[in-house]
Every structure is written in C-alpha cells, then in structure tokens.
C-alpha cells in the first residue's frame, strides 16, 4: 500500500511539475517578447535621437534591459567591441544564437529579431527607425498571440499535468 502511495505521489508530482513548467514557459515568452519590444524602442531612441555609435547604443540598451533579453544586447555589443571590423550583422547573429539556447522565443519570434540584424547600423537614421518600428509592430503581434495562447493554455497546463498524473496512476493501479 505504501509503495502504491509513493508511486502515485511520484507520478503526480512529475507530471504536475512538467505541466507547471510549460505554463510558466508560456508566460515567460510573453514577458520576453514585451521586454524585447521595449528594448528595441530604447535602441531606436539611441540611434535616431542620440546618434550614439551602435556599440554604445547596444551597451546602454543592455543596461536598461532585464533578463532574459539583457544578455542578448550585452553579447552583441561585446562582439562589436572585441573586433571593430566585425559587421553588426555578425554580432547580431551571435546574440541570436544565445537567444536560441535559452529556448524562450519561438522560431517565428527569432526570425523577426534576426531580420533586424541584416540592416542594423548600415543605413541612415530614417531607415533604421522604419526597420525597428516594423520589427516592434511584428513583435507586438507575436506578443498578442503569445498572450492569447497563455490565457487559453496556462490553466490547462497548470492543472492538466496533475490530472494526467492521476489518470496514469489510476490506470496503473
């Protein structure tokens, strides 16, 4: 009997934990997209009004940013600092690789962010503003989608994990 109780608790805990993790991941993505949007907005001001060199603009963006996006801007500005002849595109891609490893953003989100890297720092201010605003608008749509997904799936994952655990336990008993 004791073995069964321990077994059921174990299965319910594991599936419940997986469900909670998934639910947490959903809200984490929404928060991360929002953070990225805010940071790109800050970067736009640094480029368009302050006309700070890209390396400094990215460093300042990293300073005002928060995890998990902060590391991205730190990485890109560091890559530019290490070798002056590194094109911004390459440095930006290094940051994207770091974001990939974090597994917070979806491939769709990353494609929008990566697209900025193809033009960042290489055109005039008006074009940079257009590009960053376009990316911001697309990320806003992604954020909205993520929020909707979060609303509809968060409760499902939060409770679903435990329920699935219970079902598995009943079937096994």
């Amino acid at each position, binding site marked *: 009997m004791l073995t069964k109780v321990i077994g059921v608790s174990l299965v319910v805990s594991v599936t419940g934990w997986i469900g909670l993790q998934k639910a947490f991941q959903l809200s984490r993505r929404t928060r991360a997209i929002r953070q990225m949007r805010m940071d790109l907005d800050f970067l736009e001001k640094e*480029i*368009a009004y302050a*006309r700070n*060199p890209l390396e400094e*603009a990215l460093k300042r963006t990293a300073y005002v940013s928060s995890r998990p996006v902060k590391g991205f801007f730190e990485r890109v500005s560091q890559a530019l600092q290490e070798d*002056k*002849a590194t094109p911004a595109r390459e440095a930006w891609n290094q940051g994207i690789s770091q974001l990939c490893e974090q597994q917070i953003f979806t491939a769709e989100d990353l494609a929008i962010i990566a697209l900025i890297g193809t033009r960042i*720092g290489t055109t*005039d201010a008006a074009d940079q503003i257009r590009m960053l605003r376009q990316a911001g608008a697309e990320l806003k749509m992604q954020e909205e989608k993520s929020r909707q997904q979060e609303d509809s799936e968060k409760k499902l994952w939060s409770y679903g994990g435990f329920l699935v655990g219970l079902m598995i336990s009943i079937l096994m008993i």
Partner: protein
Amino acid sequence: MSIKQAMPEKLQAQIIPYLAPTIKEILINLPTAYQNQLEEIRLRMGKPLCLHLMKSETFITGSGKLTRSAEEGYLVKEDDITRTLAAISGNSVYALEEELRRGFITIRGGHRVGLAGKTIVENGQIKSMKEFSTLAIRIARELPGCGDKLMGQILDDNRLPYNTLIISPPRCGKTTILRDLARQLSRELSVVVIDERSEIAGCFKGEPQLDVGPRTDVMEGCPKALGIVMAIRALSPQVLITDEIGRYEDTQAIEECLNAGVRIIATAHASSLEDLKRRPVLQEIFKQQSFQLVVVLSRRRGPGTIEKIVRLGQTGG
C-alpha cells in the same frame, strides 16, 4: 593628438586597424619605402586592390607583392568592403549622414575615406548613400615647413599676410600648403580656419587631427560663406583661412571679411590666372580687387611647386 608621426607608424596605428582582416594581412607587410609613399588605398568591389603612391599607381597581389598587372592584383570582395566600412563607421552609418552627403568620412588622424555607392536623392539633393562599392582611403599627409617659401612672400611690413589666393589644378598641394600657412601664421596671429570639407584640419569628433597651430580656431563642416561671417562676429580673427572658394556667396563673404579688416588666405581650383579670370564668380573677386596676391601651384617638381606669384595691386593682374 598624434601629429607628425612618422608615416609607417601612422599607417600602422591609424589606417591598418580599420581595414578588413584580409586587406590588413596584405598591407601590413608592405615595405617601409612604399609605406612612406602611400597616398591612397582604394578598395573597389570585385576589382584589384589599388595603391596610389606618390609618383605612381599600382596594384597589390594577395601575397603583398606590388604589380602593374590588374589581373594579378588581389580582387576586393564584398566582405572586405563590409568589414572595412563597419570599422570606419563603427557600424553606425546613421550617425554619419552629413558625411555621407559630402561623400567622405574623416577618421582619427585626419585621414579621409571617400565613398561610392548607390546615392539616395531627395528634392534634387543627395540625402544619403547605401550599397557601398568603393572605399578610397586617402592618407592625410602633413608636411611641416612646406609653406616656408610662401611665408617669406606673403607677409607685409606689419607681419600680416596679404590677402592671398592660391590656385592650382587638383592634387598640387594647395590644402597641404594652406594648413602649413595656418600653422605658421598662428604662432603670432589669431587664425580661423573655415574647414567646410574637413580637409584642412581633418577634425575627428571636433578635434583637429592635423597641426593647424596654437592660435587657430577651426569651424568644421561649415559652409564658407556662413562660416566667414560667423567667425568675424564670434572669434575676432586676424587671419581667415579657407579652401576652394568658387560660389557667388563666397565672394560676398570675402568682401565682408575684407571690410572688417580681416586678412584672408583662400584657394581655388584653376590651372592659371587666365583660367581663373574666365570663371564668372571669380571674375567678381578680381573686380572687387579682393586679393593682393595670387599664387599659382603645380606638380612640376612635385606637389606644391610654386609656378608664379602675382602681385595684383602692382601688376594690375
């Protein structure tokens, strides 16, 4: 400020770091004799890497050997242009809009990088440039003392310079001599340089990279006509120095300068006095008798060869 560094040292410290790794590798081992003669490094996308030396133009192979044959020259890749431009612009083309409109960027050391690419035109004016295909890195050369000969000729009894116009075709050393005159005159006089194209003082982030003397104020990137009037009001110069006059508004500003009792030394593109007189705007200057001296330069015995000094007041032009 790194003024008057020996050429190879200057090249290694101020030019090489801006180059794409491949080009850097090729040029880093260029023999010192050629480094001393180097005037320009020209990167054209898909074309052989070209060096302008003092007396010749040559290509350079991938192994760093100079060659006359274009086929043997190292072919500049798009990546070389991208990386060099990234270093020169600090990946911040948006912060260099004024420079792009003018077609060149001044880097630390006062060196100029001429650009060619796709221009963006708005209302008939060049707004910006993109898709760069050529980078012409022109090495700023200071020749302290190159104006010595002229200094002896342009000072009056009160040790003030005559209003002097220096003329020559391009690449005859007008700007180099003008810079040296500013440097020498500012030992005793208050000088203002109106440096519309950042060629005389080679300012980088506001600091003159080339020696224009201890009493010289530089108005960088300022249109000559506006700069002359502004300088007279704000900086009370004794001597005003500017490059490449040629627009109608320049003549008016020069007139104002002379009325204020400020001496002026300027340059203009022309191969001879006769050539100069044929140009309508400069004709106006002669009518006004603005200049007392006209100095004609050539490259006959190297850049800065003084061909003729004409005293207009005495000879009647």
